[in-house]
C-alpha cells in the first residue's frame, strides 16, 4: 500500500508544506504500519470524515489523501482537518513525519 498526502489551505494558503508526502506502508515502523493499514484499508477512505466540521472555521488545512492498494486499486479523498477524528490526524502526522 502506498499513501500520498497533499495539503492545501491553512493561514498561508499553501497547506502544511508545498511538498506532498509519499510513503510505502511497508517501509513504516511495524506499529505505524498496522495503524495505517487498518485506517486506510480498502473502502474506508470515504468514511474518514467523522464530523461535518464548523462552517465558520477559517485557515483550516485540507488533506488530499490518495491510496494505491496492493492489488493496484486506487482511492482518493479530499477532506478538511476538522472533519477528521483526532486518531486519524495523529496517524497522518506520524505518517508525514515518517515520510520526510
Amino acid at each position, binding site marked *: 500500500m502506498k499513501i500520498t498526502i497533499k495539503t*492545501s489551505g491553512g493561514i498561508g494558503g499553501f497547506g502544511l508544506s508545498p*511538498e506532498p508526502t509519499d510513503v510505502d506502508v511497508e517501509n513504516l515502523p511495524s506499529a505505524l504500519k498496522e495503524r495505517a493499514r487498518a485506517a486506510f484499508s480498502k473502502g474506508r477512505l470515504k468514511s474518514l470524515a467523522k464530523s461535518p466540521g464548523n462552517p*465558520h472555521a*477559517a485557515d483550516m488545512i485540507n488533506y488530499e489523501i490518495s491510496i494505491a492498494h496492493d492489488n493496484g486499486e486506487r482511492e482518493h479523498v479530499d477532506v478538511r482537518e476538522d472533519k477528521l477524528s483526532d486518531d486519524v*490526524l495523529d496517524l497522518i502526522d506520524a505518517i508525514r*513525519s515518517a515520510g520526510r
Partner: protein
Amino acid sequence: MCHNHHVHHHVRNPICCIIPPHMLETLAMRGDKRTRSMAQALMKQNAEVREERAAMPLAPSAMAAAAPAPAAKRNLKRAIHDGGKKVGLPGKLVRSEGQPPTGDKSADEAYDGAGVVYDLYFKEFGRDSLDNAGLKLVATVHHRANYNNAFWNGEQMAYGDGDGRIFRTFTELSVVGHEMSHGVVQFSGGLLYRGESGALNESFADVFGALTVQRKANQSASQADWLIGKGILGANINGVALRNMKAPGTAYDDALLGKDPQPYHMDFFVNTTGDNGGVHINSGIPNHAFYLYSQLVGGNAWGKPGKVWYDALQTINNSTATFNDWARETMDSAVNLFGLGAMETLYLRRAWKLVGISV
C-alpha cells in the same frame, strides 16, 4: 442602514433595512411582476435616502448615531491552553485571566496578543470580545507536532509551533489578530469561506491583524510595514512574511514555497478551485484597497479607515458578498460616517478604483 425619509431622518424603515441590497437586486431580477415592482421601488427609495442623507450636513447627533455603541465595560477573559503537540483541543489550561506569565513564550504571546486584540476592538470600535458579549478568548498553543498552521475553528484559536523549516512560530501579533478577527467575522453574520466572500473573510482578518500591530506600535499608515506574519517564516525561506498588504505578491519568492501569488488588482484575479477558491490569494485585492485608502486618508489606519471597514462588516448582511458588494458597503459606511462629498468618501472611491473596482 436605511431611514424613512418621508417621516424623519432618524427613524429606521424596518422593511427597507431588513432586505439587504443584494436580495433586492435578486428580487428585482427574478421575482414576479409584483415582487419586481416592490424591489425596484425599495431600491429607488434606498438610493434617494442615500443621496438625501449625504447632501445634509452631518450634525453631531448624526455622527453619534453612526458610531458603534460602546461596550459598557472591559470584560476581558482569556484562557490559554497547551496542546502538548497533540491533536486534541483545547489541551491543558496553563494561563487564565489575571495569572502571571507562564515562562512559555508561545503561551505568553498568545495571552498578551489576545489582550491587545481585545483592546483594539473594545477601545476603537466599542466591541466586547469576538461576539460583542464578552466571549471568553480560548487559545491553544503547541497544537500538534511540527504543525505549520494557525486557525480559528469556530470556537477557539489554535497555534502550531511550525516545523522550524518553513515556519518558526504562529503567535506573532498579526497572526493572533488575524485568527481572532475570523471570530469577529463569524459573530458579525459571517462571510462564507469560499471564493470572493471567503477572500473578504480573509482580508478582514488581515486588515485587523495589521491594525492590531499598528495600534500597539502607535504607527501611522505611512509608518507601518503592512506585513502579515512578519518574521514567522523559517530562516532559510526567502521571504519576509505571509502577505504584504502594501505590495501584494511580494511577501516571499522561494524555491520551496514558490512566489507569493497575491494579486493587487482585479485584472490579476486568480480563478482557482484550490484554497477554497483562492481565499488567501485574492484577498490581496481588498487588502490593497484598504492599504491605499489608509494612505490617502492619512493618520492612523485604525481610525477612520478601520471604522469604515468595521461598520461595513456589521451592516453588510450578505454572507456570500462579492468584492463589489463589499466595496459598496464600505462606501455606504463612509457616507454614513463622513457624508457623500467628504474627502474620506472620495478617497475610498479612489482606492477601490485603483484596484479595479468601480463604486
